[in-house]
């Protein structure tokens, strides 16, 4: 039995932040009903990444919305609205990511919902919170990476800003929403009281940088300075970085520089005895290391470093990773099927419970595929043919 079985979630969110939260809750056993507008549904269905369309919907929609049901409703239509309200009346959790103001216009704000379902956990995600000069700006991942300082943490000193190459802000804010919802569900069960849980993409990406922002404050606002070369962290000393070898790349995390010099047969490193220098003189140390590591292959260096307990790894792409025994044993890839028989591969929930993997064979739903069943099950007023 999965931990959230018997929890019902009505999900009004689109794109990635909100839906990634409800995906996790579905993985943990909750029943998630996506409420989608007629014709287009969740805009993400058409948001094609890398041109990859899987059986009519975008590959990312397929990844984000597996294991969910789809209920089609036009929230601006009186009859549909009424049915959605009836459904919300039975739900444990409601989630939305409308921009500030829109949810009030739809009559689905917390104050209104509380009247029909006082113990509900009401979750919302915004881009920048509901106040201030940015409240009405589009909450899009790259834009939040750009304003939040994140892009200056990555890459070498001579690069411009370097964004993180995936939707990190969406995913973190979804993770925080899931945490808030789960803690509020526990409170609901223990005390019978509902809660409104709010997260914003901006606060979530600030939280992600809590180490470097706290460092910035403590350090008198000194600018972020990335290493000249072999960068992996702006605030850490040598050897922390990625190094080119004869046949690929090698990562080195923390470690003693003279000890590394000794192991690798690189005498020039042995003079850096003071740990403080590993940070202050990281650029010259990294240059020496890079020149030296370029003379051998990755397996050659790993065979020396790993037995000595130096934190190091080969840099791999997905092909290397997915073919590797160390990854296969995790059974991280699962196959899911849509109700009309289309199968695709995706990842499973990364959490395991009592030694069991949390898997599910349900693929993403077609738009409105569960509308009628849900109407019947919950006794909602029957909808006309779309």
């Amino acid at each position, binding site marked *: 039995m999965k931990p959230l079985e018997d929890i019902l979630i009505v999900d009004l969110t689109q794109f990635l932040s909100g839906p990634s939260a409800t995906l996790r809750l579905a993985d943990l056993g909750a029943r998630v009903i996506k409420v989608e507008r007629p014709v287009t549904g969740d805009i993400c269905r058409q948001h094609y990444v890398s041109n990859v369309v*899987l059986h009519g919907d975008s590959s990312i929609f397929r990844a*984000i919305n597996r294991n969910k049901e789809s209920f089609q409703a036009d929230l601006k239509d009186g009859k549909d609205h009424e049915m959605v309200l009836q459904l919300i009346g039975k739900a444990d959790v409601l989630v939305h990511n409308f921009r500030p103001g829109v949810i009030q216009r739809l009559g689905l704000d917390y104050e209104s919902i509380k009247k029909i379902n006082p113990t509900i956990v009401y979750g919302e995600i915004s881009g920048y919170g509901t106040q201030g000069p940015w409240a009405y700006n589009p909450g899009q991942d790259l834009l939040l990476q750009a304003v939040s300082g994140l892009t200056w943490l990555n890459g070498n000193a001579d690069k411009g800003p370097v*964004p993180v190459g995936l939707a990190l802000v969406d995913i973190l804010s979804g*993770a925080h929403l899931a945490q808030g919802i789960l803690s509020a569900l526990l409170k609901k069960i223990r005390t019978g009281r509902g809660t409104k849980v709010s997260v914003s993409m901006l606060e979530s990406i600030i939280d992600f940088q809590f180490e470097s922002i706290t460092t910035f404050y403590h350090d008198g606002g000194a600018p972020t300075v990335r290493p000249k070369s072999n960068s992996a962290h702006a605030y850490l000393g040598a050897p922390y970085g990625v190094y080119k070898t004869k046949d690929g790349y090698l*990562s080195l995390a923390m470690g003693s520089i003279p000890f590394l010099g000794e192991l690798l047969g690189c005498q020039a490193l042995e003079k850096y005895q003071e740990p403080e220098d590993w*940070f202050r003189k990281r650029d010259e140390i990294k240059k020496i290391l890079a020149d030296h590591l370029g003379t051998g292959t990755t397996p050659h260096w790993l065979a020396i470093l790993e037995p000595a307990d130096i934190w190091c*790894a080969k840099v791999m792409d997905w*092909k290397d990773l997915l073919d590797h025994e160390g990854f296969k044993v995790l059974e991280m890839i699962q196959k899911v099927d849509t109700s009309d028989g289309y199968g*695709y591969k995706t990842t499973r929930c990364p959490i395991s*419970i009592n030694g069991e993997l949390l898997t599910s064979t349900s693929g993403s739903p077609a738009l409105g595929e569960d509308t009628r069943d849900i109407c019947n099950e919950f006794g909602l007023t029957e909808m006309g043919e779309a």
Partner: protein
Amino acid sequence: MKPLEGILVLEFAQFMAGPSAGLRLADLGARVIKIERPGQGEAGRKIALKNLFLDGSSLVFHTANRNKESYTANLKDAKDLERVQKLIARADVMTHNFRPGVMEKIGLDYKKVSQINSGIVYATVTGYGTKGTWSSKPGQDLLIQSMSGFAGLSGDRDDAPTPVGAAVSDIVTGTHLAQGILASLIQREHTGKGTLVEVSLLESTVDLQFELITTYLNGGQKIPKRAEKGNALADLSAPYGVYPTRNGHIVLAMGSVTELGAILDNEALQEYTDAQSWFTQRDEIMDLLRGVLVDRDTEDWMALLEGQGFWCAPVFDYRTFLSHEGYEVLKMDQELLLPSGEKVRTLRCPIRLDNERIFSPKPAPRVGQHTEEIIKELL
């Protein structure tokens, strides 16, 4: 009332992944007691950014361990261990990130612990799971970024793999750990039974890439190609990326290249009428855009593009961002007063409950600061 009031968490976990989950649970109302070895305490006290230390521990430690208590115990000492077992008997949750086998040796593995407390949620973080060739390899953030394919996603086409300069694997894993713990606490309300929750840095970092890996698995197994310059997300078409302006940088998100051409009054851009070409001719479109955008200031472009509803943003550094009205209105900062009298300005929990921000001014503890009180109160 905070939602986790009354929940007692024992944190044996060290470094960042486990403690970041403990911090979140603490901010949501749980009481979190770090179980640390006498003397040095947890190993994360020594891991510093920029060599910054305060009151004997790194600033990073203070950031991730505020709002917790500290209890010292030598788990190899019979008397200390017995006391810890008594604490465990009263706890709701315990977390650790020892390598597979260590807790078995001490006698605090899940099987033993559930005999002391059948309702406990026992949560562990490993690097790579407990099976297979990597299970004894050190689980460290940069190594996981490197091995999981993640380092290949950022930076430009000809750049080396570019890791993210923050503990992204640790932090994402910590969010999953907290989720698993909370879901198990919910289940316990119905069943009365405890749970073993396991996460690993590798699985969590693969999960982080779930959209792109799903695209890879079903789209002909093509490793994403980063843009030649100004890359922001390798799978996306032009104009998505970063562009230099006369006085800084601007980012452009998804949008129509021809509309963008019209807004910028650039004929060459308006010729890309086939949306497919935004993918296939991404680099030449981005080149054209670079040529245009470098001529004026970021603020000018923002006024023009935002006015037309095009998704764009200025690129800020911390100095600009953290003093911006858009940041200040969040009231994200809080100040902690350490026992030494030093102050740490850091951030609060990012989640708001019933429209209230969650502040918790309690600083990170000194090693063993609360041992005696806890013995008196709980043992």
